[in-house]
């Protein structure tokens, strides 16, 4: 909503710079997007009088003009506009002037003839082409006859105005009008606004009753008010310049005197109005109803629209001629030939208009206001004002009376609120006089009894109907700057993370200290990526109406997103990347639309975790590096159960020989391994290792009871064993056997070498372990250890076919 500060002077005496006014509006009422100064940056643009206008000797369309710009000698200017002629007052950009869009005008020659400046069209002065009246769009703009040559042109075009561009919140529809804004500013500055009056003269000899008949076939809620007036003998022409200026400064294109009058009154009162060509209404019959399935209407913009049963339509003899509150029909449009006008002033249901505007993608000044609500008490006044204005501008007459399709009894709303409640909610200590004064300034009449206000809210503030709404009025007029700043008091509460939140935080820190940086990827992805790397099979949750094919489905795993991140980095020559993500995956649940949201934590590493440096080689990450990170992390969780890694070829996106499922006892909680080379290629990443863990499950699993173990005071004894063993025999099997046969004092088994290179027969590998024995209560005797160790060696040979070296 653009508010002209010059127009505001009709209402209020505001001797305040526009920026200050804007700041005040912003602090007290609605957001301000900025102050528009149409002449900003423009200089030396003056009124010129074309004294002579001769055809250019070397051109079939240029003219050479001598233009009086208020100086001793006229300026010679070459002009190509079709409408340039001697005797006109025109806009002259003098030599070295600045016009719109930061353009500088210099002396030049056009086809050999000197041109000392330029005659301008409106768009050259920075007018938005959507605001330039169509009849002047193709030529230079002709100024009024009384314009004085040499004077700056801006005041003649309203370009010296300062326009406050307000962004109106949905609740403040009342400020989508000059009247409403004036009431608001009057309250802010404690003034009494001068409101417009209506000077309507009806033609006593011309009664509307026999000529226009209006019937409402929609219910009271959809169409609470519908009224029409009839204006006869109107001469359609361009509006006077003052009116055009007010409209274009308000962001509306001047069309003709009838449409401009309705738009002007719309700007004044916030009441949408629609003018029909009365002679196109067969028998003057108008009815309003909901559209029927399959009906069509060609709207003003030339579009043929299929109507929906939720659309309210204005009909002539039951044929739709207008989409109520959004756009008129082409058939009954006011044209140059129109002489008689049927003028509509109505109130339509906000939700209905909102749907129509949305469904037909037709958002107009009218629909915007109906959606936010309008002042039901002002409809007929606005209708009268527009009728009077059309008659005046078009030399027509207004028929006597109003054709009323539906009327309503508009009553002010009464709200009661105590002073104590106001102070209680605001945390203030305002007295009765201060609050009374605020209500008075707002134009709300009040009566006070027992420290309680009964406030009568005029219909122009239809947003107010609750005590809370009044509290807001008091707060903002009193000024938020004047409120004290305190913190809540009352019974203390404990603020701390719950177990899940604490574990998520701890998990993040563990990952970071292991060298992984936190990524936050998109939860929405393609269906294929959403399903990839899923720990458990599940259906996916899809958007009903996605915005792009890349973001259609909620993820089942975090890895696919991390691989996208890695690919993004790889494409930018970052080949050493270690990321983790903590976030939700979305498993579908039977019979339910809403998926089960499970916290997962996943990591993806490619390249070397250790950056290349002097004296340190890069260490390309491998399976065992990422497994080490996972194992260290799981250890930090202190799970009661036993963590196991089981080779798995079941994940199609993972390397079949380099992937382990991770179990805690018998519960699958995740997997770790190398991304399948084919998958890596498809995601455009290099060799990459990943893991994904079900964090929700890990959080829920029982934790080990932590109890101090006394540290043995007695020395330990170690024995090393190296063996050749079948390549397929796993470390886990060897360790399990050693543990089983190791005896009571075997404390630790450490693998210190794995070798399958030279000197190792094909199909075999060499493993070497250190076994540590210790007794809690006594010094171990060497013989005891030797005996226990021999048992292990025997078992390894007989049960696993190991060859002890």
């Amino acid at each position, binding site marked *: 909503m653009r508010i002209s500060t010059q127009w505001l002077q009709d209402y209020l005496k505001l001797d305040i710079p526009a920026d200050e006014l804007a700041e005040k509006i*912003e*602090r007290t009422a*609605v*957001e301000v997007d*900025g102050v528009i100064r149409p002449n900003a940056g423009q200089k030396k643009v003056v009124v010129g009088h074309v004294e002579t206008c001769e055809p250019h000797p070397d051109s079939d369309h240029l003219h050479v003009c001598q233009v009086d710009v208020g100086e001793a000698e006229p300026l010679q200017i070459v002009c190509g506009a079709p409408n340039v002629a001697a005797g006109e007052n025109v806009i002259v950009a003098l030599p070295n002037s600045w016009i719109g869009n930061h353009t500088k005008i210099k002396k030049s020659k056009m086809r050999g003839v000197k041109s000392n400046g330029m005659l301008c069209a409106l768009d050259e002065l920075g007018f938005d082409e959507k605001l330039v009246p169509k009849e002047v769009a193709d030529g230079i703009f002709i100024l009024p006859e009384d314009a004085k040559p040499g004077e700056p042109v801006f005041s003649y075009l309203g370009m010296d105005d300062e326009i406050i561009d307000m962004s109106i919140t*949905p609740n*403040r529809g009342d400020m989508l009008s000059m009247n409403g804004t004036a009431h608001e500013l009057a309250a802010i500055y404690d003034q009494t606004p001068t409101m417009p009056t209506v000077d309507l003269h009806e033609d006593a000899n011309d009664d509307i009753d026999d000529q226009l008949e209006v019937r409402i076939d929609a219910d009271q809620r959809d169409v609470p008010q519908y009224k029409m007036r009839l204006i006869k003998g109107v001469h359609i022409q361009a509006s006077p310049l003052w009116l055009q200026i007010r409209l274009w400064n308000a962001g509306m294109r001047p069309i003709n005197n009838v449409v401009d009058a309705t738009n002007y009154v719309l700007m004044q009162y916030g009441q949408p109005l629609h003018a029909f060509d009365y002679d196109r209404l067969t028998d003057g019959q108008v009815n309003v109803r909901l559209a029927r399935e399959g009906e069509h209407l060609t709207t003003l913009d030339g579009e043929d629209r299929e109507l929906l049963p939720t659309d309210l339509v204005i009909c002539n003899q039951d044929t739709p001629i207008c989409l109520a509150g959004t756009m008129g029909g082409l058939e009954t449009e006011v044209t140059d030939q129109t002489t008689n006008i049927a003028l509509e002033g109505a109130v339509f249901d906000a*939700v209905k208009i909102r749907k129509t505007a949305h469904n037909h993608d037709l958002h107009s000044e009218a629909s915007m206001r109906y959606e936010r609500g309008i002042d039901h008490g002002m409809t007929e006044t606005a209708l009268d004002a527009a009728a009077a204005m059309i008659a005046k501008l078009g030399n027509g007459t207004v028929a006597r009376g109003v054709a009323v399709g539906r009327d309503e009894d508009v009553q002010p709303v009464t709200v009661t609120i105590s002073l104590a409640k106001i102070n209680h*909610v*605001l*945390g203030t200590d305002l007295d009765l006089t201060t609050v009374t004064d605020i209500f008075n300034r707002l134009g709300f009449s009040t009566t006070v009894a027992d420290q309680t206000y009964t406030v009568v809210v005029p219909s122009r503030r239809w947003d107010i109907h*609750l005590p*809370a*709404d009044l*509290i*807001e009025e008091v*707060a903002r007029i009193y000024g*938020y*700057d004047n*409120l*004290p*700043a*305190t*913190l*809540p008091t*009352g*019974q203390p*509460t404990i*603020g701390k*993370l719950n177990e899940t939140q604490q574990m998520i*935080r701890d998990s*993040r*820190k563990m990952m*970071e*200290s*292991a*060298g992984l*940086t*936190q990524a*936050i990827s*998109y*939860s*929405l992805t393609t269906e294929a990526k959403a399903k990839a790397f899923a720990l458990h099979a599940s259906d996916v*949750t899809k*958007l009903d109406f*996605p*915005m792009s094919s890349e*973001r259609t489905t909620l993820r089942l795993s975090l890895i696919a997103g991390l691989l996208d*991140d890695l690919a993004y980095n790889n494409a930018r020559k*970052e080949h050493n990347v270690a990321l983790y993500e903590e*976030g*939700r995956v*979305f498993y579908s649940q039977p019979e339910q*639309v*809403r998926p089960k*949201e499970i916290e997962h934590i996943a990591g993806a590493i490619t390249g070397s*975790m250790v950056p290349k*440096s*002097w004296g*340190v080689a890069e260490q390309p990450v491998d399976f065992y590096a990422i497994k080490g990170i996972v194992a260290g992390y799981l250890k930090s969780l202190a799970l009661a159960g036993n963590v196991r890694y089981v080779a798995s070829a079941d994940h199609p996106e993972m390397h079949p020989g380099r992937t382990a499922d991770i179990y805690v006892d018998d519960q699958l909680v995740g997997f770790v391994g190398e991304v399948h080379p084919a998958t890596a290629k498809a995601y455009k990443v290099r060799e990459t290792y990943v893991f994904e863990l079900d964090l929700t499950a890990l959080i829920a699993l029982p934790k080990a009871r932590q109890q101090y173990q006394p540290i043995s005071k007695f020395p330990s004894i170690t024995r090393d064993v190296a063996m050749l063993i079948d390549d397929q025999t796993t470390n886990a099997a060897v360790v399990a056997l050693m543990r089983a046969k190791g005896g009571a004092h075997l404390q630790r088994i450490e693998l210190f070498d794995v070798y399958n290179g030279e000197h190792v027969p094909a199909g075999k590998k060499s493993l070497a372990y250190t076994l540590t024995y210790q007794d809690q209560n006594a010094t171990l005797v060497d013989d005891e250890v030797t005996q226990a160790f021999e048992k292990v060696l025997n078992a390894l040979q007989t049960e696993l076919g190991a060859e002890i070296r």
Partner: protein
Amino acid sequence: MSLQDRLTELRDQGLADIKSADVLKKVNQVKVELLGKKGPITEVLRGMRDVAPEERPKIGAYANEVRDKLQAAIDHRRSELEQAALNKQLAAEQLDVTLPGRPAVQGQPHVITQIITELEDLFMGMGYQIVDGDEVEEDYYNFERLNLPKDHPARDMQDTFYITKDVLLRTQTSADQPRSLENHDFSKGPLKVLSPGRVYRRDTDDATHSHQFHQIEGLVVDKHITMADLKGTLILVAKTLFGDQFDVRLRPSYFPFTEPSVEADVTCFNCNGKGCAICKQTGWIEVLGAGMVHPHVLEMSGIDPEVYGGFAFGLGPDRFAMLKYGVDDIRNFYLNDVRFLSQFYKKG
């Protein structure tokens, strides 16, 4: 030569030898030679039997004095030489300390997590509970229970991803607040919750729009919660995140779930309030929305608005991070370029 003179001679010779010894080995050699069991001093003392008994204590004392003196000189010389050797070694071991250290591997929290964590900690310190709602929510909780019935014009402010007609991706983390309200037992004290999390809007991704971003919403409900409390809380948030030197202003706004509603601006830190491109020449930057909980929202959760009241506020960590660090493209937060992520050091 008297024994005494002999001792003096030994002393002077010994001190000279010690002084001239230039390596430890020589010092040790001097020691063995002079003070050893077969050394000249022992020899001298053996000659004591030839000395008159009354002279013996004097000679003995003098001999001890000489021996102690020599021992001290040896210790001193030894330590001198050791120190010199150490100095030489240290000089040889000198490093170029400007060479880079060997890298220790350390990851970092995401910048948005840092902001969320900072605010979580601030609010937990004031007794707030952190609550995590679901990201897939019912329209009923996301909108209707927050006083946004279907067809409400304010729904235009939040274009929504729907799964079905009634299920959506939450557009605000306050979607969980109706549940907090209806589940809270006010006999145990006020409700004070902070809901951080991911939210979604049906937007095309560009420099300033993202279909996924984060929100932190706060809610306090009790018998005596005032707008002044809200103002004090918002000032605290702004100053915690941006610094004490900035001003905060509140101005009226509209949210269906609060009445009165306000937006909070802080002084533009780019221009210090003078007006620049970042603050669109206003000198202020909008950082959060807030208000007093609308009575309808309380009523719908079975709470009597005549007895209880409260405030709610919401802010965007993405936007905060953009403002605080001058990030000019919101997509940076979700592309996870390591060159971007590694710029924000603070521990989360």
